[in-house]
């Protein structure tokens, strides 16, 4: 199959899948199959969390810079777009609907809100990134954490967007919007990672000094990944605002940032599919545990927070690198065995002598050199 046809096919499959899930979540259901509003909400929130986790993974997982301010960028996107839709959207929609109809007008206005929200978060990312990405490790973490809190406190004190009482937002975001943007986020991040830019980002994570020596402007690429990551967080904020129809600064505390970090650490830093898996697990797990049965007079559901914490600890103890680690889950996993078939490829030493043909002394000599190197 030609790559072009394959792309079309994948696109059609994705659209059909999104539409089917959206229909199943709607009031009517899909062919009589549907879920209750509570479960539907969890699915949509999982979609928003996928956008957040996959985008944070670009900076934390692939570029190796530890940011814990993702909720701050999400808040910027949410509040900026909500300000637009609350104060200006009606007038714009009225102006547009005369020529293109009401539905099209509202879609266009919401797309505009998405663009503005994403851009605002991206600009904030640029402003925070330029000075703070000179810092490393813990210091960067603290700066981003502080930044997110500053954003939250500023918003808390702006009365036009509700201040402490919260901000009621119009909107009719459904799963179709969220799912489409989750897919877009995954595709964009994947395409970036599997490109020259992606290799530059990963090289910064692996060895910044060597990366610079290869001609890579590490500061520029750190800022770039930070800006892209912030933009998607902003988009997630826009979708959340118009799905939830109510914004409160309590939704954007550092706990939210940590939740997103837990998603990528759990799923596997540096794995897109891992981030998706982590986002879904972390969204569903606390809710799913509410349905635990009663055992021997004890209601396990009452212990859900304890069980949730214990599960996280167990997963991290058994898979410290995350469920998927650096690996990606894909069709290749199903198609071919994990290990390379032996025989056709002989691994040799650097003189080209296959290890299998080396004498014992040679092998031991090689080992001792390796040991020596390791102990350096």
């Amino acid at each position, binding site marked *: 199959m030609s790559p072009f046809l394959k792309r079309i096919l994948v696109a059609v499959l994705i659209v059909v899948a999104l539409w089917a899930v959206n229909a199943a979540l709607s009031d009517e259901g899909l062919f009589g199959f549907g879920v209750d509003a509570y479960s539907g909400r969890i699915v949509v929130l999982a979609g928003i969390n996928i956008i957040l986790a996959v985008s944070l993974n670009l900076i934390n997982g692939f570029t190796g810079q530890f940011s814990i301010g993702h909720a701050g960028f999400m808040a910027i996107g949410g509040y900026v777009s909500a300000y637009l839709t609350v104060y200006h959207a009606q007038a714009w929609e009225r102006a547009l609907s005369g020529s293109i109809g009401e539905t099209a007008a509202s879609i266009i206005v919401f797309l505009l809100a998405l663009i503005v929200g994403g851009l605002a978060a991206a600009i904030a990312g640029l402003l925070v990134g330029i000075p703070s990405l000179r810092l490393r490790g813990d210091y960067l973490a603290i700066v981003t954490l502080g930044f997110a809190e500053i954003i939250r406190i500023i918003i808390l004190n702006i009365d036009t967007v509700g201040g402490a009482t919260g901000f009621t937002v119009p909107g009719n975001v459904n799963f179709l919007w969220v799912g489409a943007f989750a897919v877009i986020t995954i595709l964009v991040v994947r395409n970036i990672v599997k490109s*020259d830019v992606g290799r530059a980002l990963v090289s910064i994570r692996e060895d910044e000094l060597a990366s610079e020596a290869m001609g890579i402007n590490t500061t520029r690429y750190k800022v770039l990944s930070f800006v892209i990551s912030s933009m998607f967080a902003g988009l997630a904020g826009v979708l959340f605002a118009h799905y939830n129809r109510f914004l409160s600064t309590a939704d954007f505390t550092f706990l939210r940032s940590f939740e997103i970090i837990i998603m990528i650490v759990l799923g596997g830093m540096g794995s897109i599919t891992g981030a998706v898996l982590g986002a879904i697990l972390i969204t569903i797990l606390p809710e799913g545990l509410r349905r635990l049965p009663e055992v021997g007079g004890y209601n396990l559901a009452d212990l859900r927070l304890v069980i949730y914490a214990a599960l996280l600890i167990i997963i991290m103890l058994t898979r410290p690198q995350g469920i998927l680690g650096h690996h990606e889950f894909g069709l290749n996993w199903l198609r071919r065995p994990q290990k390379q078939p032996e025989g056709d490829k002989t691994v040799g030493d650097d003189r080209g002598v296959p290890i299998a043909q080396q004498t014992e002394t040679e092998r031991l000599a090689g080992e001792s050199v390796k040991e020596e190197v390791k102990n350096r």
Partner: protein
Amino acid sequence: MSGAPEPSAVSATKEDGILTEAARTARSHGAKEDDSGALLRTDQATIRFGGLIAVNELSMAVREGEIFGLIGPNGAGKTTIFNLLTGVYQPTTGEIYFQGQRIDGLRSYEISRRGVSRTFQNIRLFPGMNVLENVLTACHTHTKQSLADAVLRTPRFVRDEKEQREYCMELLSIFNLDRFKDEGGTSLPYGNQRRLEIVRALATRPKLLLLDEPAAGMNPSEQDDLLNLIRQIRDRFGLTILLVEHNMKVVMGVCERIQVVDYGKSIALGLPEEIRNDPKVIEAYLGD
């Protein structure tokens, strides 16, 4: 591959004759005159870390096409000099020129883009990448794809990616590393890791290659291979090579000119046999 002309044997010997002359004057005057046209030149470069002067008024000049050795006992400041040349450190005083332009004060990546590439004393491959990706990363400044090309997977992206891959595979095959392309770079045997690091440095298409103790951790037979390899690289890619080395056999075997540093100061400059018999060098290495 790069097509710079091979330096012919005849001109090399002729130059050597002049070099000896220059080297003699250099030893008494600090290696400054008639080196203004050198590919890489430092002028009284000094770096201080607090009270410690790691490199003290070092003047050196590496000429186009030569294999130049920088040697000295442990802690003499050799790697610090490398870090000065590649922008990891900035000199406290003094100047560094590459192709006649000042490069001190530039950042590492800018120096790399001008054509200075390096390997590291303690191999610094990218552990999370396979062999091919390690080399592809070094093609960064020569790619024609933009971020938008990558996101939208444009034909230009596909073409560029294919070209870079082919280039890297060609480079890898010269070093017999092409069959390891999908293996983790750091899971290769030690000697191959050193070679891969050289391939990665070459993928930036440098004019000057800096090798930081390339023979470290190698056994005698691997060292012999390395000597041939270094010469081959110079001839095949038309490069200039600056070598920091500890191992006398390697230095004497491959370098055309050698400068000796001790306590951050240049103590001798000349041809290998001159260096071998220089009382100052013997004293620095063996003590009084």
